[in-house]
C-alpha cells in the first residue's frame, strides 16, 4: 500500500495522526510527516485515517506504480 497526501489541501486537522499514529506524525502543530510505503500491519489504520480526513487529502493506492 502506498499513500500520497495532498499538502495543499491538508489543514492540519490531525485526524490521521490520531487514527494511524505509526504512519502519520505531526511535527510541531502543523507540519505533517508520513510514511509513503505503508507497512502491512498498518493498512487498516491507514484506511480509517483516509476516510476520516476532513478535507479528503489522503490518497491511498493498494500497490505502487500506475
Amino acid at each position, binding site marked *: 500500500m502506498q499513500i500520497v497526501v495532498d499538502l495543499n489541501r491538508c489543514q492540519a*486537522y*490531525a*485526524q490521521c*495522526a*490520531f*487514527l*494511524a*499514529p505509526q504512519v502519520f*506524525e*505531526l*511535527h*510541531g*502543530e502543523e507540519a505533517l510527516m508520513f510514511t509513503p510505503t505503508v507497512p502491512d500491519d498498518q493498512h*487498516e*489504520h491507514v*484506511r*480509517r485515517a483516509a*476516510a*476520516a480526513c*476532513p*478535507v*479528503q487529502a489522503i490518497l491511498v493506492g493498494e500497490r505502487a506504480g500506475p
Partner: protein
Amino acid sequence: MSPETLYQRITDYANRANPYPLYAELRENGVTRQADGSYLVGTYHEIAALLHDPRISSDSRNRADPSTVPMFRRNSQQAFIGLDDPEHDRLRRIAMRPFGPPHSPGRIDALRADITRISDGLIDEFRDKDRIDVVEDFAYPLPVTVICRLLGVPHEDMPQLRAWTNAVIAGVDVTPGKDEESRQRAGQDARAAMGEYMGDLSDKRRENPSDDMLSALVHDSGPDGRLTRAELMATGTLLLIAGHETTVNLITNGALTFLRFPDAYRLLRDKPELMPRAVEELLRYEPPVHLLPQRTPLADVEISDVTVPKGAPLILVLAAGNRDPLRFDDPDHFDPTREDNQHFGFGSGVHNCFGAPLARVEAQIALNALVPRLEDFQLSEDPPPYRRSPILRGPRHLPIERVG
C-alpha cells in the same frame, strides 16, 4: 408557511423525528431573518464560509441583545467551545497536549483494545434478549465508560454525573417552552456542581497521579503554562459532557439507519471494512449535532445578499448543510460508500470537534460489533421517541425486537 417562523418550527418538538423537510425549506429560502431577530443559515457553502470567518464569534456575550445570551455564559469561566481566539486557541492547545498529536499521538489508538472489550461485554449481556433498547443497553454505557476511563473519572460517580449532564443539556435547550428560566437556572447549578467535581478530582490527581488524561493535564507544563482551577473546571466539564453525549447519538443513529435500510445493512454486515466510511456518511446523513445556536457576527456580514448585522444571533444549521444538493449528490440517500464526503458532522474550522477522533474510533468499533447482532432484529417503533433537544438531536430510546 412564513420563513420567519422556520426556527420556531425547527425547534418545535413535534418536528424532532423528521426535521429534514424544514431544512429543505430553509435552504430554499436562503439566509432567513427570524421574527425574533436571529438569522438562520442552512446552505453548505455559506455555512462553510462562516465557520472559517474570523468575524464570526463563538462567544455569545458579543450579542447586541443581552437577553439572547444564555445565563451560564454571563458570569463564569467559559470553556473553549464558547470563546474566540486567541483565548480559545490557548485553552484548546493546553487541553490537546495530553489528548493527541503532537504531544500524545498514541492515546486514542491505545484505547482501541479497551473500547472493543467494553463494547463486546455490553453485547454479551443482551445476547439472549428478544427486546433491546439500543440506547440504554449499548449506545449510552459505551461512551460513558470510555470517557470515564480516558479522563480518570471513577465509574461509580456516573449516575450523579448523568443527572448533572441532563440538567446542563436541558439548560442549553432552545425548544420553546414555558419553563425556560427554571431550566436555565437548573442547568447553571448543575454546571457549577460538575465544575466543582472536576476541580476536586483534578486536585486528587495532582496529589495522586494515575495514567489518565486529567492527571496528565494537571502535571503538564507546556509553553502556554497550566490551566487555572477555574479553567480546569470549565474544560473538564466540557470534555466530560461533550465526550459522551454526542457519541450516544452517533451510535444510536447508526443502529437506526442500518435497520431502516436493509441494503446498506447487508453491505456493512458483509464488508465490515467499509465501516469507517459508513460512519462518515452517518455523520453527514444523521449527525449528532444539528445546529450551532451560539454564533454572533462581530461586524455586519454579507451572506448571499443578506446583511446579518453585528451582534445578531446567527444560527448555523449544520444538518441542513449536510443535505444540500448543491454540495452532495442525492443528499437524502444514505450511501455508506459515498466518496467526496466533506460533511459538517464535526463542524469545520478552528472549532471543529475536539473529540472527533475518539468519536470515530468508538463509533467504528461499536457499530462493527453491533451489526452482526442486528441480524434478526427490527425496529419496534419507527420513528423512535426522540430526546427533547433540537441541537443534540437523537433518539431517547431505540427499542428493537427479535423477528418472529
